């Protein structure tokens, strides 16, 4: 199966990635070859095999007591943020 420009533009939008005009044909080609390659899977008989999401099945999601286990590192964590004000993350205006 091969993908066209519109397919790749749609995927890039879903993935929230800007793609330049120069990059677009490169991704059309390489994503098409990857999709054709993984299309090989359709030849394998899987019938009613149960899908496997995790390599160590039988492990159960652990629960812990609902108690505070982390200290407040708000300021430290925000030192990595591109833009903050009054302890909040700043983004372009969303509501006019």
């Amino acid at each position, binding site marked *: 199966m091969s993908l066209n420009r519109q397919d790749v533009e749609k995927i890039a939008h879903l993935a*929230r990635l800007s793609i330049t005009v120069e990059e677009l044909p490169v991704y059309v080609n390489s994503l098409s*070859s*990857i999709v054709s390659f993984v299309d090989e*899977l*359709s030849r*394998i008989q899987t019938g009613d095999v149960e899908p*496997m999401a995790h*390599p160590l099945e039988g492990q159960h999601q652990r629960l812990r007591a609902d108690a505070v286990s982390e200290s407040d590192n708000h300021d430290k964590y925000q030192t990595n943020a591109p833009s903050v004000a009054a302890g909040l*993350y700043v983004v*372009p205006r969303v509501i006019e």
Partner: protein
Amino acid sequence: MLHNLSIGELAERLSSRQISSVELTRHYLARIERFGAALNALISVTAESALADAAAADLRLARGERRPLLGIPLIHKDIFCTDGVKTSCGSRMLDNFIAPYDATVVTRLKEAGVVMLGKANMDEFAMGSSNETSYYGPVKNPWDTRKVPGGSSGGSAAAAAARLAPLTTGTDTGGSIRQPAALTGITGIKPTYGRVSRYGMIAFASSLDQAGVFARSAADAAPALQAMAGFDPRDSTSVDVPVPDYSAALKKPLTGLKVGILREFFEGLEARNAALIHDALKVFKDLGAQTQEVSLPHLPASVPTYYVVAPAECSSNLSRFDGVRYGYRCENPKDLLDLYKRSRGEGFGAEVKRRIMTGTYVLSAGYFDAYYLKAQKVRRLITDDFRAAFAQVDLLIGPTTPTPAFDIGAKIDDPVTMYLNDIYTIGANLAGLPGMSLPCGFIDGLPMGLQLMGPHFSEERLLSAAHGYQSATDWHTRAPKGYE
């Protein structure tokens, strides 16, 4: 020379005060200064904190404290968060990121007394098999600087091979420890999924990622794995299984060990590569092991299965990079959507974007069943094949890679050809199995790797088999010319 001593020998000299950790650290920092830039193996060198940590280790040694890794230098792959130190994951996205906490692997190795020399170069977000996708440029293979070192842990592998540190950490999602270990002539172990905590290890594909270590021998890798392994409540997939004494396990004789020869690995295998594996099998037989052929009929489907599952998980994991909370932000975004799209479009490199888009596609409405669900079904068939094989044999043996290290630039424009490099290593990740690569000879002057795989939590068995092989051979002692 100090840099050719084993971890055991170094520990002996440190504890008898023949050398200090500060001297040892200075020795390795001098080698990094001399070779690091030409190989492009490190993203950050932390000389100042390394010398402070070494001085602290010397104090502990002077007080009589004895631990196998106390005062031993190490380089971390730049995928592990290190508190207060740049943690880039090989990406422009995180070029300005100073990790606010330590990964569990980093914490545990610190507690064991290691001295961090710096952070190793890697494929961007661990996506690559050649270390060419790094924002910081390709790493060179110390055996031939025109060649790739493998990936994604290429900087860690090149650094260990060039004796820039006796130990380096890595991660393995589809072969990212074993493949570069093979291509640089060193020993690498990828433990069972869940054996080592993933907390603070920047996520690529969460059901496949696992941390491990590079060393020059199985005996050197054992104490490092010992320090890293074990249950961590901060990783929801960490497994609460006791950690055995890996160094004690090394000495276990191989008499009666049943070694499986994977039929599918030899189909189409280059004759010189096959000859090296057969030579290695002879060594195992001489050590008392028995060999038998086994078949994993679904194994050839492992590469397409992986290149659905891994990109799907990557597209989900990497959605956290939004240009808001940390990482790269584009200039002058006109609105929130533009901020997301351009921050991600400019912050990620080509291979990462390709995988995010592949993952987005296979998870999108109308394609989910045909690709993602289908791949998860095939994943089970592959895992069942391994389970059946391990009902007959204790270990599986085969090559780690189809070829020796290839030229920088040779495969980077053809993703499917690059992906096929991982054909022998991906199966273990899909099934969550431990695997190792050991040096087993040379093709055209370049090192080749022998791969061992075992059932879940059989790291002891892998290490004892590897140690037995390395006690009978000397491939692992070879150093690239100029780095002896």
